[in-house]
């Protein structure tokens, strides 16, 4: 696109050279373009096409069923259950991990010597493999043998078995989700804080804004608003993609209480082999994630005029 407008702007004498420049640019970008089409764009189209069929994994034959998979999906209580669980999970994880990270970032920003240390400590969960850490968490939250069980027993409280109870299982997964996300958000907030100039801070201090909460409420928080919006949307996307912990710890149980959209797509497509129906679920998932991403781009652009 850009190259074309450049050539139009260029004078006639240079036109032939510029055309060959545009061609050259296309030739150079062709491999990347083709790879993108082959590995990202084409598969999405294939999934959309399969979602209109009754294709079963492994078969050579299929029938076109039109919107059949989509109407079935609307009347599938397990689809709505998965969607509801995803929404609840997101509603728990996103606010805690965003505002928790903001709080930590403001605290850390004031630190000079120990800041690096805390950054590393809080960022470590992001670098760890969630699948492996899920197993560690299952021990930590175990109602009978873990440290939490010992703590509760020591306080004379009844044991809490996180992954045996429907409501608690979702909360257990949320705890792990917050733990994994908060470090990432913290680093983004710290980056956002660096752009707040020290002059502003000094000026506000001179005007009598001494308290921690006052500074947060009237100075830091408004200036961090654009960063917060981006982090908020990114966290929503991350939370909606929850899969590892579900697959390792609960398998969607007990009785569907922690069934999430991605996990349901996986079991329906690869365990029950219903690739057609699984593709329809995937399309719905893509639309949801796409909406979040568009929201992010739109809010991101607004930020530029802030």
């Amino acid at each position, binding site marked *: 696109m850009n190259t074309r407008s450049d050539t139009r702007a260029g004078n006639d004498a240079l036109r032939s050279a510029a055309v060959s420049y545009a061609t050259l640019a296309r030739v150079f970008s062709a491999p990347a373009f083709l790879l993108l089409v082959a590995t990202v764009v084409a598969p999405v189209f294939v999934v959309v096409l399969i979602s209109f069929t009754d294709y079963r994994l492994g078969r050579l034959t299929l029938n076109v069923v039109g919107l059949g998979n989509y109407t079935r999906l609307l009347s599938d209580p397990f689809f709505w259950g998965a969607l509801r669980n995803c929404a609840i999970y997101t509603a728990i994880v996103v606010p805690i991990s965003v505002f928790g990270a903001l709080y930590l970032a403001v605290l850390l920003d004031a630190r000079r010597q120990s800041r690096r240390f805390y950054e590393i400590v809080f960022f470590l969960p992001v670098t760890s493999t969630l699948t492996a850490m899920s197993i560690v968490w299952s021990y930590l939250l175990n109602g009978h043998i873990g440290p939490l069980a010992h703590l509760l027993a020591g306080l004379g409280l009844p044991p809490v078995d996180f992954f045996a109870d429907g409501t608690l299982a979702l909360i257990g997964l949320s705890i792990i989700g917050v733990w994994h996300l908060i470090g990432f958000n913290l680093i983004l907030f710290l980056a956002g804080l660096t752009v707040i100039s020290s002059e502003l801070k000094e000026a506000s201090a001179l005007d009598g804004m001494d308290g921690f909460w006052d500074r947060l409420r009237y100075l830091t928080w408004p200036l961090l608003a654009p960063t917060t919006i981006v982090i908020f949307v990114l966290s929503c996307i991350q939370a909606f993609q929850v899969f590892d912990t579900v697959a390792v710890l609960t398998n969607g*149980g*007990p009785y569907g209480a922690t069934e999430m959209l991605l996990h349901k797509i996986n079991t329906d497509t*690869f365990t*029950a082999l219903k690739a057609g129906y699984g593709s329809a679920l995937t399309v719905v998932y893509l639309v949801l994630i796409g909406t979040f991403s568009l929201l992010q781009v739109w809010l991101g652009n607004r930020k530029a005029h802030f």
Partner: protein
Amino acid sequence: MTVKAILTAAALALGVTAPALAADSVTLDFYHSQLPFLPSLIEGFRKAHPDIVIHDLAPVASYSAGDQTVIRGMMTGTAPDVYLASYASLASIADVMKDRGNAQSLDPLFAKEGKAWTAANYPPAILDLAKVGGEQYAMPFTASLPLLYVNKELVEKAGGTIDHFPSTWDGVIDLAAKISKFGDGVQGIGFSVGGLSDDWYWQMMVMSAGDRMLNDESTGIGYDNKAGLEALRVTQDIAVKTGMSVYADPKPAQQQFFAGKIGIVVESPSDLVAYETAIGDRFTMRTVRFPLIDAEKGGLPAGGNALMVLANDPAKRAAAWEFIKYMTSVAVQADVSKASGYMPVNVQSASALQGFYADHPNFQTVFASTPAARPWFAYPNNTADGVWKGVAPILDQLQRGKLTADAALPMIRDHVAGVMASQ
């Protein structure tokens, strides 16, 4: 000897041996789930058949993950030659093979051996477990029927004995209720019928009442009748009348049983060795028959796995057949039984194991139920998961006493009919 003579001899030797090796050596890719006794069996086969190379692929964590890999393999031409599949997944794999036009049953290989050979080694009831649409698509390798694992001391303290263990569910429930009265966290029975990732427990209840999981047309449940209601009633009584803790997972009851806190649990004999190891000398564990709700018509779902041959090449199929014959031979099956607790699929192994059984009565219990063995119910078109997802929570509520059997049956009926209509 001249140089020329040596060269000639070498050429001759090469000329004779090289083609012989190339023609005789067949490599088989063998794919299976993790079974602790398998490696030594494969080693034994290598020694007995040096001409057949068994390429032992990395074992898979679960049957369902294995099925996925095999089906993917069929799509990309990298399927293993021999696959150890669970009885529950034979039909769906055979269906994919048929759809792809490369399904070959083992019937011609059985025919070559002759009827007398088959009859002398494999009982028809065992062979039936691995049939799909009447054709022998796999060779049974292990077989199991559910048993009750009991804590002998708790049972005796409650006034029962192993030798005269109740043979009806009502008798077992009475005994369990007595054990539950001991206090100190001790419970009579741990059998959360809905708390398993598949419907194995529920198949036991329905089949032992003499019913089928689905009707003949596969449009809905096959237990929408008096016997089905009785299965639901017993399922509820097991929990409600004994004060049982209902779990959504089999592990808690298992751990409590290991700790001597539960009197009776339901298990496959294949876990016998693992259970005996876990319990050690904390208490005496004994196995007894799983009671049939209908002593005459009732059956029990057979668990276990079977060897499928996926290769199409005749040389590979012939080699795979040798491997299958070895794995189901008298001696190997006796070893499998001793190492796990599975029933041997070869009839002659039982007599070879008589001395062992005399010393280990727990291993013999399963044979008492053999006449009740029925093939594991395989749902059409992989609907098992969809069916169970709706039935399991209903059974959970039933056992927690929040639903009556009369209320549960129509709920199950409607859910299963819905799944079958939209498959």
